[in-house]
């Protein structure tokens, strides 16, 4: 019974595919999985839009939208209809082909990332040996789409926004990869299903998730920062900040193309949160050993939505970082800490089991963080702003 609930989607797929003739079955299987992903994640996107608006409203001491449907639940539907019926304006001097292709390339690259995420037991679309590498390769392609969008609009604000966005994405790509490499190092494989399987053990009821280790916790924090920057989310949303650059690289997009950019951003958020859950939070494994009866895909999506809620929380709390501040932060703070994290992960492995490795590794990471933070504050790079007045 529990087994059925856990594997219900896999069984459903096998049954549907079995209805077709044998020659069509492999293709049909893949197509069915793809259709499932294309159906589920945009629906989740609509739900997230609603959650975000209501959540942000509540954090700002106001109720969010509550007119369209009970509690405003149909607001995403209203937004979708609005974006579909709006006029699609393309500037006269814009590069028409590139302008048209940019949102398509973005959404296509982002959708590809979902192919390797293990959404449940046996629920990975393509079980690749180098799954993590594939994911990051697709993530790198989104930068090009952002640049295409900014360039083709023939608008200096769009171009500036695109350049800032690409610079930001490249800067935070390195900490993102480095914090994932620590996980790969400890697991010994690039395959995401193997990474989840390595975390799916329990000691005294508690799981072996990597976040519960010193290097895993530090890695997770840095992964979260890098993720927020990669998806252009607050506080790293300078490229699309309304008060800064109108709308950055998607200024000249209206109607459905803008909706595609919006969709692309949120889908990127989902897939990268899913990857974070897989790498550090144990993917589809349950938090306690007595909770393994709950289906695995429920755990995966709960962790995903928890990450999304933390994103929304950060958006409602933190002010925007300036371009030079976020670049400084990436190269001078996060990157050295990720390199140290790699060292600490190796140390963790070679110190062997026991309490010594906990103490040593935690001490090294904590000291490094405190020292670098203190140094950054002293020099004025981080921390509250210091004013210099004219004499």
């Amino acid at each position, binding site marked *: 019974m529990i087994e059925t609930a856990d594997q219900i989607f896999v069984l459903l797929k096998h049954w549907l595919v079995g209805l077709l003739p044998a020659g069509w079955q492999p293709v049909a299987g893949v197509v069915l999985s793809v259709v499932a992903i294309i159906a589920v994640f945009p629906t989740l996107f609509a739900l997230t839009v609603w959650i975000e608006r209501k959540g942000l409203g509540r954090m700002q001491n106001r109720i969010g939208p509550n007119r369209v449907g009970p509690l405003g639940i149909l607001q995403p539907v209203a937004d979708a209809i609005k974006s579909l019926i709006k006029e699609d304006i393309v500037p006269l001097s814009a590069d028409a082909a590139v302008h048209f292709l940019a949102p398509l390339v973005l959404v296509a690259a982002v959708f590809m990332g979902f192919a390797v995420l293990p959404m449940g037991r046996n629920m990975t679309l393509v079980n690749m*040996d180098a799954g993590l590498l594939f994911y990051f390769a697709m993530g*790198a392609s989104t930068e090009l789409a952002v640049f295409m969008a900014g*360039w083709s609009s023939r608008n200096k604000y769009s171009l500036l926004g695109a350049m800032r966005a690409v610079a930001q994405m490249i800067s935070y790509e390195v900490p993102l990869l480095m914090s994932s490499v620590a996980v790969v190092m400890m697991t010994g494989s690039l395959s995401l299903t193997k990474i989840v399987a390595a975390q799916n053990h329990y000691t005294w009821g508690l799981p072996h998730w990597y976040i519960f280790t010193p290097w895993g916790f530090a890695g997770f924090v840095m992964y979260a920062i890098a993720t927020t920057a990669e998806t252009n989310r607050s506080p790293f949303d300078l490229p699309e900040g309304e008060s800064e650059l109108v709308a950055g690289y998607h200024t000249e997009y209206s109607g459905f193309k803008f909706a595609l950019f919006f969709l692309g951003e949120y889908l990127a958020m989902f897939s990268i949160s899913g990857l974070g859950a897989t790498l550090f939070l144990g993917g589809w494994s349950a938090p306690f050993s007595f909770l393994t009866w709950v289906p695995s895909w429920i755990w995966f999506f709960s962790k995903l939505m928890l990450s999304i809620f933390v994103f929304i929380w950060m958006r409602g709390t933190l002010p925007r970082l300036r371009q030079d501040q976020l670049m400084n932060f990436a190269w001078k703070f996060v990157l050295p800490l990720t390199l140290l994290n790699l060292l600490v992960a190796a140390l963790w492995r070679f110190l062997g089991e026991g309490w010594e490795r906990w103490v040593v590794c935690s001490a090294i990471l904590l000291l490094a963080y405190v020292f670098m933070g203190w140094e950054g504050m002293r020099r004025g790079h981080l921390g509250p702003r210091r004013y210099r007045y004219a004499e």
Partner: protein
Amino acid sequence: MSLVFYAIAGLTLAGALAAVLLKNTVHCALALTVAFAGLALLFLELDAQFAGFAQILVYIGAVAVLVVFAILLTRGSETPKDGVYSRNWLAGLVIAAGVFAVLGWAVLESARALPHETAAPTVTVLQIGNALMSRYVLPLEIVALLLTAALIGAVIVAMHEKEGQK
């Protein structure tokens, strides 16, 4: 030589041709990106997963972005007045044909020279990692040194510019 191979090869060639024949420089860069993607697909068709994904990650994610940044920050985005074809195109064509002939001969010779493999060898990332760390560790370190030198050089150039502005 299946249908998939011909399709991918056609895509790569089309991208490469567009990269040299188009007038707008940014369009050329994007067509080059398509050619890179075609190469990556060829690697994947041959089951070399690591090579294919590394190709996408490095070439499309970094090199293509570098190329477009270079076009942006210089004035290369304007269409050259004299047209895109150089005057001594015949010499260029001859040299390119010569290089292609040499490469083609080498590839075909190697297919004849190497022993026949019945099944395609599966090279896992683990094997690549092992090889890098044991047999090819010296090239790895030299490449790392080269990259560090490039990074330091870039920082020095940028620092000099900043000092020059002051």
